[in-house]
């Protein structure tokens, strides 16, 4: 058992597609909350295997996409810190700020480095005691524990030169905001790895109060198809529950160890989501005890954030109210090499995946 290739078997997936066809009665709209699901769907051409009656829209589940422009400006500002090193996951390099992104800042001489793990950033700090390392903590609950571990490690090593700028966000408040704002979506394919950490429990209000079925799906093409099948079954049968397709990775309680570490280091705060606005209690900030590791205290620039370009419809795309194809800027002013809003930035942003994989077709 390799836990991977088995779930990409052609016949297996053909079987699930046939099952979906059999069960599907009427039209439904499903949202994959998570950007990695969007990529998986497009990359394997899964939409071409689904009946036309089934509509898939992409939700806000891209932590890079939804970092506010002001936050990007703050990361770019840290590039100016004397003897500073900005350490970041690759995803953040091309996110547009008011004047530039981190890649452009790097081209202008700032020491900005891509790391694979938060521990790599701690390592950088340890090996370069005369420099200040600023780690960009971006991501949802899947990634926040890794940042927490890094802060704890920095404390253990008594590092004076490691700092984190937390742009972390958590999921349940934004799903609530989405539902409260009104949505066309009938059911949710829920993020498998976020739920590996937080468990499926926090999704229960969506099913019980809002009456929208939720299936927590894995990311292999077989997982995604199976999760879609389970959602269609719930919808056709009039049920609204939280089900686990990805039970090999997810439980109801989640990973209590990772959650505890996250909770030790971070507490929640209101935070701005690009394209959506302020979502109460949706951001993670360092607890006072760890204030000395907070990079925000060291940001010295006068940040003047420009308003969003006119015509950018990311907010609507993120809410599933519009497909990228319907946005007036898509493929014109807004392209991967010159992204206007966050949806075009990350390789998993709805608009970026539409651009790369959908070609001229309607997905």
């Amino acid at each position, binding site marked *: 058992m390799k*836990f991977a290739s088995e779930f990409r078997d052609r016949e297996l997936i053909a079987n699930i597609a046939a099952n979906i066809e059999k069960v599907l009665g009427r039209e439904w709209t499903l949202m994959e909350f998570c950007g990695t699901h969007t990529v998986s769907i497009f990359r394997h051409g899964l939409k071409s295997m689904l009946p036309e009656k089934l509509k898939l829209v992409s939700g806000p589940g891209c932590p890079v996409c939804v970092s506010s422009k002001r936050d990007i400006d703050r990361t770019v500002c840290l590039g100016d810190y004397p003897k500073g090193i900005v350490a970041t996951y690759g995803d953040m390099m091309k996110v547009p700020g008011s004047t530039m992104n981190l890649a452009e800042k790097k081209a202008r001489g700032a020491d900005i480095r891509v790391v694979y793990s938060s*521990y790599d950033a701690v390592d950088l700090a340890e090996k370069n005691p005369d420099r200040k390392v600023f780690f960009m903590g971006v991501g949802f609950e899947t990634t926040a524990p890794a940042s927490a571990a890094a802060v704890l490690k920095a404390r253990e090593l008594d590092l004076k030169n490691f700092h984190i700028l937390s742009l972390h966000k958590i999921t349940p408040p934004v799903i609530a905001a989405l539902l409260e704002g009104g949505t066309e979506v009938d059911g949710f394919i829920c993020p498998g790895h976020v739920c590996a950490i937080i468990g499926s429990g926090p999704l229960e209000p969506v099913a019980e109060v809002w009456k929208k079925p939720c299936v927590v799906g894995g990311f292999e093409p077989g997982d995604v198809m199976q999760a879609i099948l389970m959602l269609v079954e719930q919808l056709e049968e009039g049920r609204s529950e939280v089900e686990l397709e990805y039970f090999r990775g997810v439980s109801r309680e989640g990973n209590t160890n990772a959650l505890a570490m996250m909770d030790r280091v971070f507490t929640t705060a209101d935070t701005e989501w690009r394209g959506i606005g302020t979502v109460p209690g949706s951001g993670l900030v360092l607890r006072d005890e760890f204030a000395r590791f907070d990079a925000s205290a060291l940001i010295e620039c006068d940040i003047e954030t420009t308003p969003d370009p006119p015509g950018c419809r990311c907010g609507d795309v993120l809410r599933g109210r519009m497909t990228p194809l319907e946005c007036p800027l898509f493929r014109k002013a807004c392209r991967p090499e010159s992204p206007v809003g966050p949806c075009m930035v990350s390789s998993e942003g709805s608009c970026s995946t539409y651009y790369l994989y959908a070609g001229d077709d309607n997905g």
Partner: protein
Amino acid sequence: MCLAIPALIVEKEGNKVRADVGGVVRDISLELIDRPAEIGDYVLLHAGFAIHKLEKEDAEETLKLMRDVLG
């Protein structure tokens, strides 16, 4: 979100753990994992951290459900 892939633990000595993803070997951390994992176990690897221990039975049961022919 997010990219996490199955990785096989091949070395474990105190805090030093190495995992193999189809021939690519990397140092990883087990500090975030939900239950103990030993050499020979598969874990879900995300950004250098194991976030979950994978069980063969769960994977096999999932495949069984996927092979089910409806109707």
